[in-house]
């Protein structure tokens, strides 16, 4: 009896459910071509594009500022080179009367570059100043003077100072994506980093929500216990 009632009930339910559809007749869309679905866009790619646009906008003024700073540094380097050349010429001419006159007119130790022996190519102080400028300048410049250093310690200083050419990637909490010279390296790591940050904040937010709801639930049970 029960089985019969179940079967009957199921039949009734099915007929009730299909009645409006049958009454409405064939569907309008049947037989027609299926409209083209909108292209599936990857939200990650869209987000990446937007982030890149923002980053490009941010990096433009940074690049402009960097260019200006480089120009200033180049100008300073040129001026320093000119001073060094002039000093070198004075040092070369130091063997004659001019050198004696220089040595006599200047207090001792005030201009060691001018007082350098004529055999040396560049006076020590001039080399030091040029090295200092070289540290601040961009090392990728191909037009730099190819100086030869006789002292290996100057090589060590230049090697050690190479890290000063690296510019910080983070500006006020925003990570500037590296230029697309190494696309697989730069894009992947930055994208994963952004995703990790979003996920981290999501975890923190859900954790806070959980604590809040747990506290509310606990307070409600206490109130219920007191009221009862």
């Amino acid at each position, binding site marked *: 009896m029960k089985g019969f009632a179940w079967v009957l009930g199921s039949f009734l339910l099915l007929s009730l459910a299909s009645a409006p559809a049958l009454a409405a007749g064939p569907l309008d869309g049947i037989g027609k071509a299926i409209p083209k679905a909108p292209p599936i866009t990857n939200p990650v790619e869209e987000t990446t594009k937007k982030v890149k646009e923002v980053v490009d906008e941010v990096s433009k003024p940074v690049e402009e500022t960097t260019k200006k700073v480089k120009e200033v540094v180049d100008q300073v380097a040129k001026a320093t080179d000119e001073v060094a050349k002039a000093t070198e010429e004075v040092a070369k001419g130091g063997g004659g009367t001019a050198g004696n006159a220089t040595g006599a007119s200047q207090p001792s130790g005030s201009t060691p570059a001018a007082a350098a022996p004529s055999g040396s190519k560049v006076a020590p102080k001039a080399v030091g100043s040029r090295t200092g400028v070289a540290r601040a300048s961009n090392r990728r410049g*191909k037009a730099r003077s190819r100086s*030869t250093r006789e002292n*290996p310690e100057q*090589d060590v200083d230049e*090697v050690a100072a190479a*890290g000063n050419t*690296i510019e910080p*990637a983070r500006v006020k909490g925003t990570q500037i994506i590296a230029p697309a010279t190494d696309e697989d390296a730069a894009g992947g790591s930055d994208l994963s980093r952004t995703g990790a940050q979003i996920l*981290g904040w999501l975890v923190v937010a859900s954790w806070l929500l959980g604590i809040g709801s747990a506290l509310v639930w606990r307070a409600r049970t206490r109130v219920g216990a007191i009221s009862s």
Partner: protein
Amino acid sequence: MIISRQSLILAAVILGALILEAVILWWFFGGSGSDDNPTSRDSLPEARLEETAGCGSISLAGGEGNSSFVRGSHYAIEVPAAWEGDLDGSVVTLTKRNGRATLSIGRARPGELSGALDDLRDSLRRTYPRLEVTRVEPILIDGCPARWILGRAANRRGARLSFEGVVVSAPTGNFVMAGFRERGAEPQLDFELSRTIRSVEFLVADARARS
């Protein structure tokens, strides 16, 4: 104070959430290991200074027509992809094109390697006020005995750097190398730097080459 079962469950849930969060955060931000704590050394060989019979090379890989190498005085170093090399006097500087890393090699003070290493450390300390050397190890570069230091620093522009420096006792003299990369920029740069440092080939002395 009676601790109910519900309270225990609540505490366990909160503790579990905390542990899960810590694990996830560590996985994403701290799990790369070599990123902020450059201690991974899977590329540089372990030090066995007695194995120095094959120090140097008779012919350099960067000699004829090999554009992927930059040749300096008595040495050649490979220029990785997306890097460019520049020879300035006796110093070769390789720079990643996006400016996130640089590696330089030049001559060091002749004599004991410890003296050259002291020079490098002193120069690094002078250049970077917040310098922290985390490891110092003896290694082999192109079969030559070397000392390798690893650490971190911050440069004048405020970039947080990881660096590795090497002083090598090559057949034609001592050489110094220092590689810098920005921490957190590209973790694989650590491997690139180590691989590039290992790519250096030192020319043996002329007498040995002729023989």
